[in-house]
């Protein structure tokens, strides 16, 4: 349990909520300024280094890190995890590490689905070369050269 006096706890709660509010504002500002909504002429979302969307990647990284920071603040200060016994903390927090693999595995799978979908739609839209055969001319069927296909 916490060693803090009533007044100290009140101060910590107030400080934590202010930090959480500020971090949220920063997150929203990153999203809006980054996409060019707030300051005309300023946007990072569409900046690339080669083919790599560096602006987008940095924005996402910043917003994800800030969200994780917010989550840690809520768990440790608001939910008082900081003042619990180490064993209790580990038994609750360590299992969430499994999610790291879940995220990697599923997102890779999602990416694979997209590639498959695009591959199939490319094949569907492929124009078949029709100019070899004169229009209306007889259809010349290639006879198989060997007997390996059988049936003749």
């Amino acid at each position: 349990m916490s060693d803090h006096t009533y007044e100290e706890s009140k101060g910590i709660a107030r400080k934590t909520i202010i930090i959480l509010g500020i971090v949220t504002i920063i997150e929203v500002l990153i999203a809006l300024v980054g996409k060019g909504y707030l300051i005309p002429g300023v946007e990072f979302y569409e900046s690339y280094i080669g083919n790599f969307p560096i602006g987008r990647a940095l924005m996402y990284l910043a917003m994800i890190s800030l969200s994780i920071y917010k989550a840690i603040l809520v768990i440790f200060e608001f939910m008082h995890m900081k003042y619990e016994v180490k064993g209790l903390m580990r038994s609750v927090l360590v299992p969430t590490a499994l999610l790291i693999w879940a995220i990697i595995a599923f997102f890779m799978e999602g990416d694979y689905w997209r590639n498959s979908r695009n591959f199939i739609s490319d094949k569907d839209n492929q124009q078949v070369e029709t100019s070899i055969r004169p229009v209306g001319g007889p259809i010349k069927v290639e006879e198989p050269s060997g007997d390996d296909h059988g049936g003749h």
Partner: protein
Amino acid sequence: MSAETAHGHAVMESDEKLWSGGKSPFKSSYGKLMMWYFLLSDAFTFAGFLIAYGTLRFSMNTWPVPDFVFSSFPFLQGTNYPLLFVSLMTFILLASSFTMIRAVQEGKEENKSGVVKWMIYTIIGGAMFLGCQAWEWTTLIATEHMTVSTNPFGTHTASGVYLDDEHGHAYAAGAEAETFKEGETYLIHKADGEWLKRRFRYTDGPNEGTVARQDFGPKAFGALFFFITGFHGFHVLSGVLFLIIIAINVASGLYVKRRNGYEMVEKIGLYWHFVDLVWVFVFLVFYLL
């Protein structure tokens, strides 16, 4: 630990002694510990939902841009307020988390009227959040016609120019037509039960010059949005109901008799902060990214 160090020190020396029974190794009550494990399992449920969202989003070439989808604000005309309303919802939930922790602190002080006061503030915060969510859902369903299986928010894959105006009529000769850029999200309007899919001509990309029509966006978007925010809203709703029950119990003096520093308030506090914690990630995944 300060008061019991002399006594507790010997216990901490060997793990075998710590777990041999008769004492509480986690120095926590059964109820609080089980609340933690419930929240852990609930976190996995939410993580499963959000990972499903990410997987489906990764599997699509385009995805509705959140700043376009969530850009309405009550009593304000038009849709020029990206993220403003959800930011307000986030602040309401954060504020209610603060009032909740104040209620827990008053409980530690055995100050009954203080606990009731701050719990009522928390209930109001939760109810306000639910009201905001109801408004957001109503706008999406009634005005923008998004359902679990229909997603009228599509996204352009290349730049182009519209051939029809918003009402589906072809532009008159000489009229200035509306242009759009790659990656821009549009909303297909619905009038008299008909979807008005505007025609446009691509001005770049592999299909340059061809005429196409607006089409629905990824179908999963609506289902994911309504199920995930709905599941979170359901947590807020049950949280508010439990807060009301516990606030009544506090006011009736039930927990004074238990003499455990209003532990029940602490437990519902854990749950309430967890709801806020989940919102941090729902906000990130649905609205920011």
